[in-house]
């Protein structure tokens, strides 16, 4: 494999501006290991693990949720550009008011009885995925004074190997809150653009939903870690 330094794009464990990292980031250096044959394999999700309806977050309730309807499309690839097939992707997000249906979310914003903000799907043979949802709202958090998280969608991606496991967040282009978000800015500058979706109108639904594209690249399952 060519030189792809994950250090160029992944955030460090310790990023003091994001306060929770101060007590949870390991202080010792990590031990660099080649993935074991076990980690080069991973859980296999049966086809019927997901229902097609679970990729549409807007049909869960009795009527349509509030907010700006959107379609999120993308492909899951490995570092060699190969499609990652039948990878489970889980998505979750706040509603259009920036509220999660969680008891520990104390943001004074309304829940939407027609929006649970949770979905899942398996990528197809080309590594593609498509999710229908509403644009999540920004919300305040207590990390720092006047802190607000930019609108984001959480994505959990399994790939085909335990070593490929990735949880990330997708952000929206042109959001002024990106500049003040320590979680987004924990990513080295060279990687930040990779977390921002592109407007992709043609994959939206004419007159109904805006389209966004967010491709996801996982490490190659057979890639040799640098330095090993």
């Amino acid at each position: 494999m060519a030189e792809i330094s994950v250090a160029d794009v992944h955030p460090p464990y310790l990023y003091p501006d994001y306060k929770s990292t101060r007590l949870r980031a390991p202080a010792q250096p990590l031990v660099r290991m080649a993935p074991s044959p076990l980690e080069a394999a991973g859980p296999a999700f049966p086809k019927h693990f997901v229902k097609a309806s679970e990729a549409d977050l807007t049909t869960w309730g009795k009527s349509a949720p509030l907010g700006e309807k959107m379609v999120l499309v993308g492909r899951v690839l490995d570092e060699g550009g190969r499609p990652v097939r039948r990878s489970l992707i889980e998505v979750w997000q706040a509603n259009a008011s920036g509220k999660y249906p969680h008891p520990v979310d104390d943001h004074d914003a309304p829940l939407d009885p027609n929006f649970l903000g949770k979905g899942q799907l398996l990528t197809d043979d080309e590594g593609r995925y498509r999710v229908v949802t509403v644009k999540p709202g920004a919300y305040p958090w207590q990390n720092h004074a006047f802190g607000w998280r930019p609108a984001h969608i959480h994505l959990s991606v399994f790939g085909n190997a335990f070593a490929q496991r990735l949880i990330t967040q997708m952000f929206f282009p042109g959001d002024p809150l990106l500049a003040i978000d320590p979680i987004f800015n924990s990513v080295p500058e060279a990687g930040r653009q990779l977390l921002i979706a592109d407007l992709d109108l043609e994959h939206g639904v004419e007159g109904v939903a805006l389209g966004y594209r967010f491709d996801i690249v996982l490490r190659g399952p057979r890639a040799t870690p640098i330095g090993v």
Partner: protein
Amino acid sequence: MPKPTPSQTVGPFFARELLWQDGGKVLFPGHGDRITLTGRVFDGTGAPIFDALLETWQADAAGKFPAGGEGARPYGYGRVSTDTDGAYAIETVVPSSFKGAGGETYAPQISVAIFARGLLKALHTRVFLAPLEEIKDDPLARAIGDPERLRTLIAARDPGNPEIYRWDVRLRGVGEAVFIEL
């Protein structure tokens, strides 16, 4: 070549989205003596971490990597969160050792990924279900060397109940577990 997508924290709000009913009960196509891997997760001040997500992936009792699944669940994979005491529990089988491509032997172990608020990337490690003297030839055990550090990855069998393996995880500071960069 495309650049890898950067990791971001799982955040505090994932329990309703990522946890499965009986996610801590690991399924296998065959049989094996059931055991429980249990312990607590602590931060750098020694306080329990009440909002961590633990995922486990392992070989079966014969050392085979499970393919496929049952019902709507993949074999060999466990997923739980910690509770208010920082405690977790995975009901599974003791995996057998397995061989690497170069003929090296991997001691009985479970691969673990930990996600949490405050973790911008998953913490990967391997927990051993065998005593220190039986894991010395394992690739990770050899890479660590120092037995004191290696002990942070050994699940100790409960002397009063052989079906229980205890493994506490300290993310930072005194007794910090060894984490690996895959």
